[in-house]
């Protein structure tokens, strides 16, 4: 076995950078979370108030409902993106003319900045001046109004997220599919396995780590979405699309309630971490068990 020193040296830059820019700010936020601090309020000093911020957020109905809608949003968006992204990645594995061209077109949404995506979708969907309500009305007689109907607004943020981020899933899964060895597939075909059996017994187990990594990344990003939804709905109507990122934004910026904002951030970070850890342990442990026979 080669010496571990080389391995640690390869990891060192990563640990150093993430340690400085990841852990230090976290310690600071944790410190602020135990204080009452409103730098632009009547008393600008930090006042230690123990766990009061945390006690407050347990009873904060707005915060709790924002957690609930964020989970719902993340679930619908990520599930659709992974399913759709996998199908599209499989489609890109086929041989057909213009494949590179279509792949470039498919990845275009990724290079549009979130703030622009939100703005354009807003302009496309605003009642009476947006093209989508206009077309739906004249073609199907359907009245789309995101300013009035919470369900429509919620669905639209999900659709926007799918439009924007499915290409990411397609690309990562495409890379995983391209790296698969060909022998098991050829062997399975010789053995007369059907398409579904090949997918379930060969493709899926082999690209499971890649799917898992993609789900994690998308889940985390969906849970902290701010810019796009802010531009599209500003969290409305009511609190229908007030996702937790937007909620923190509203606590920190208009109200400048830093102590409370920090407490919410710590809790959100904690919840995300626990959720991902459970998923990770459940799925990875299952994979390890399977490997034994």
């Amino acid at each position: 076995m080669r010496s571990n020193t080389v391995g640690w040296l390869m990891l060192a830059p990563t640990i150093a950078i993430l340690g400085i820019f990841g852990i230090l700010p976290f310690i600071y936020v944790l410190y602020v979370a135990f204080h009452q601090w409103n730098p632009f309020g009547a008393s600008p000093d930090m006042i230690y108030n123990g766990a009061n911020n945390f006690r407050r957020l347990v009873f904060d109905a707005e915060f709790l409902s924002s957690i609930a809608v964020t989970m719902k949003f993340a679930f619908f968006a990520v599930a659709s993106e992974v399913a759709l992204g996998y199908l599209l990645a499989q489609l890109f594995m086929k041989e057909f003319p213009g494949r590179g061209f279509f792949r470039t077109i498919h990845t275009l949404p990724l290079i549009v900045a979130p703030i622009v995506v939100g703005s354009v979708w807003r302009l496309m969907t605003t009642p009476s001046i947006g093209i989508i309500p206009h077309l739906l009305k004249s073609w199907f007689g359907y009245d789309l109004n995101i300013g009035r109907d919470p369900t429509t607004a919620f669905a639209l943020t999900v659709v926007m997220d799918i439009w924007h981020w499915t290409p990411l899933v397609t690309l990562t899964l495409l890379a995983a599919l391209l790296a698969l060895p060909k022998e098991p597939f050829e062997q399975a075909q010789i053995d007369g396995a059907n398409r579904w059996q090949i997918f379930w017994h060969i493709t899926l187990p082999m690209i499971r780590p890649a799917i898992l990594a993609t789900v994690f990344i998308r889940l985390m990003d969906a849970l902290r979405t701010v810019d796009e939804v802010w531009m599209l709905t500003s969290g409305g109507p009511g609190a229908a699309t007030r996702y937790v990122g937007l909620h923190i934004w509203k606590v920190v910026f208009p109200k400048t309630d830093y102590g409370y904002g920090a407490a919410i951030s710590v809790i959100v970070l904690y919840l995300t971490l626990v959720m991902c850890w459970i998923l990770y342990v459940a799925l990875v442990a299952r994979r390890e068990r399977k490997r034994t026979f």
Partner: protein
Amino acid sequence: MPSRNPLIYVALWVLLSLLTLFPIYWLFVISVKPAVDLFTTPSLFLDTIYWKNYVNVIGNATLRGYMLNSIIISSCNALLVTTLAFLACYALSRYDLPGKENIFFWTITNRMAPAAVFLLPFFLLFTQVFTFGDWKLYDTKIGMILLYCTFNLPFAIWTLRPTIDGIPKELDEAATVDGASTWQVISEVIFPLARPGLAVTLILTWVFAWNEFLLAATLTSFNARTITTGLSEYVTTTGTEWGAMASIAVITLIPALIIFSVVQRHIVAGLTFGAVKE
């Protein structure tokens, strides 16, 4: 597998591309309309094209500077992150380091933080901690390149790890037996096989750095300001200059497209493992 007529796939992709392109087409429509026309009954096609927004944007030296900053920051960040992640993943995959799975999971926690509150400690770090005499990390390209590692490094490590893990260890061992050094194993055995994964990682980290907005808006003022942030200056609470915003957004697609088409060529199946083993 039963092979179908490839034209079916072409037809399917044409349809999908129309859906994908529609919001981008609409971005273009917004960019070539005078502001007053935006708030009338919309029509799907343009009858006149109004280029004034583009003339204004291209003639604006500040925005050209922002664009250059964006290109430098995203490209350096993507290259740095992909290289570091490649090494880190190799170490995580091939060495028996104690606690490595915890380190692996810890890296991703850096991407979970909700941005709003973390802007403040970053601001303090950049203006008060990392200062040497008059020099501050604030508003420097190197500062942004390093800072963007916080969300891009975890991403790169998590997307590359399955690729590196998927490369059979026997290949390393065979090369080592033949007298290859660790560096030769990485550059001549692992690198070619990980190429599609590396290309995808490079593209996506580049995209994340290119589109980042909150951190750049808080931690830069002019010298390192990025185009995404410059563009957001046209989006305010009192009203958005739609034409200017949209035309900048359309122009920013061009460098991104060039980089995409260069890197995308590497998203092809590497050598099959069977062929290597022989």
